[in-house]
């Protein structure tokens, strides 16, 4: 049961990878055909991208062929690499939204409000959301420590160049 689900996941993963490679390759070749490329002497400007697209297409076909071959022989499980841990997709989704999405907001705040304030706030949010054994005390102390460290390192020592901040 569990094994079956794992195998399905591998199938999906491999199919998605192949689809990604083929799409990128075809889109790229179309772009070379119809995009605006400035003429260059002797070798076209798209020589390297073109080669890269061919490699992507070839790799995509290769992955599909391997899948087909294993499916025919009925040993799809051979595709599963030992030690490949199963991913917690929900967790990764949350982490991407929280950390990468949060970082966009964070850096906007750094540019428009101030480095230290933004750092303390963002660090507080991250610790609150991520630290399994965060207490109220640590929530108060840790972000201030990180803020102080960032200030000491980047403002005091390095003198980082940022637009004049609104706050601190």
């Amino acid at each position, binding site marked *: 049961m569990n094994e079956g689900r794992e195998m399905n996941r591998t199938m999906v993963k491999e199919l998605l990878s192949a689809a990604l490679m083929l799409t990128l390759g075809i889109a790229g070749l179309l772009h070379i055909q119809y995009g605006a490329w400035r003429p260059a002497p002797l070798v076209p400007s798209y020589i390297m991208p073109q080669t890269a697209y061919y490699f992507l297409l070839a790799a995509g076909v290769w992955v599909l062929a*391997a899948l087909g071959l294993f499916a025919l022989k009925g040993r799809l499980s051979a595709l599963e690499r030992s030690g490949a841990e199963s991913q917690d997709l929900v*967790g990764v989704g949350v982490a991407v939204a929280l950390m990468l999405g949060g970082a966009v907001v964070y850096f906007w705040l750094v540019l428009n409000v101030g480095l230290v304030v933004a750092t303390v706030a963002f660090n507080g949010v991250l610790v609150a959301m991520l630290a399994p054994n965060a207490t109220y005390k640590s929530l108060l102390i840790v972000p201030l420590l990180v803020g102080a460290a960032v200030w000491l390192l980047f403002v005091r020592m390095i003198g980082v160049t940022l637009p004049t901040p609104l706050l601190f």
Partner: protein
Amino acid sequence: MLDIVIEASALAFHPYVMMYVFLGVLLGITLGAIPGLSGDMAIALLLPFVFFLEPALAMGLLVGIYKGGLFGGSISAISFGVPGTPGAAATSIDGYQAKLQGKPSKALHTALYSSVIGDTTSDLVLIFIAVPLAAVALTFGPIEFFALYAFSLILIAALSQGMVAKGLAVAAIGVLLAMIGRDPITGASRLTFGMPGLSGGLSLIPVLIGIFAISEVVFQGAKLWRRKVDKLMDDVAEQASLLQGYDISKDKLTWAEFKSTLKATYIGAAVGTFIGALPGAGQSLAAFMSYGLAQRFSRRSEEFGKGSLEGIASAESGNSATCGSTFIPLFAFGIPGSATAALFGAAFILMGMTPGPSLLTDHTAIIYALFFTLIFANLVNLLLGKILLPYYSRIAMIQPGFMIPAVFILAIVGTYAANNSVMDVWVLLFAGLLGVTLRLMGFPLAPLVLGFIIGPGAERALRQSMIMGGGDWWVLVKSPIAIGFYIAAFALIMLFTFALRARK
């Protein structure tokens, strides 16, 4: 000769100079450990003071920072899977796995020793055979460089054992990312999707830190979040690896283990020294190339990628072995072969010494003093490393719930500060997202970064060769060195194919 040596050692071993070397190494290790920041940046910041310092003092400080920074990058690579400098990206592959197995101290010590050995080799080469090696480096024109890059690309394919198709595909994606920006021959913008901010291309630091470090941090964030919502306290294995449970006395690098990494270290030292002497090739390429070669020549190649100490040793020694040899083109011809060499060149100029062939004859004493300082700084690096590593090993074991957010924030601000570029921050986050996606789909990440590093050089070399050869493709095999590389590549493929078969 003897009086010069005495004079130079009086300069190099003056107490103030030695103090500055200590200070520099300490500063370098600290900055190198922060993702995005590197020794280069500290050197750039300190350039104005070079005006006011005695040359020997300035050299001591700058050399210390540079060497400390080269090693410092591996600390965060091993501790958090987050390479502190581009050169440490290869170190993070095995280093972080070793830490997860509860061996941070072994990993860090392997990195320290191999870094010092690689670095010292490279310094000795600089001191004793700079001139012949420089002559070899000069014979590398576009045709030879293209062959070298093609050779490296074949090693990439070799890096991703068992998933050659996926390895090639991500290498292609890396090349494509590197093509964004200006065409090197016509100067036209390409693949910028209409965004002027992309017209200068993507810089190495945000792409590399994003792909390796940010994606790793996000994955760790995901695990932490899952544990938090499931109200699981740290499980037993995790508990053991936390600070209170971690017993550093059981995590000592043994003599036998050290000896087993020596072959990898020597491979790294040789590859790093050679790549470092070529203008423009760089530390990351050296590290990945020696990692690839060491894996191929290792008796236990299957352990690579799973916390192999040999993997750490080869990557770190290759990275650090560029240190001395990157000065070879600078001293021999006044050509800065890397960003670091350019900064040292500027420091020489600020001190009234023009880099180039006349440097050694016009300023003999101070250059010999610099040689002594280069070697001495390695000893300082070793000593400070020995003193500090137990603390770093413990920091590596601090609760990730508090460490990961801090590392993430430092990586963002550090990447911004490296070039004062807002665009770099967005590129960093985008590269992080790409890294997460590729990991989820089971792609290896190292080939992508190598494609990104090699792509522009390979393209330029190819197109320059074609321009020089008037559009005749045969120009690519009109050089004995280039033919040598192609034969070596072919031989390696044959060797590996048959060696692998024979082993099974």
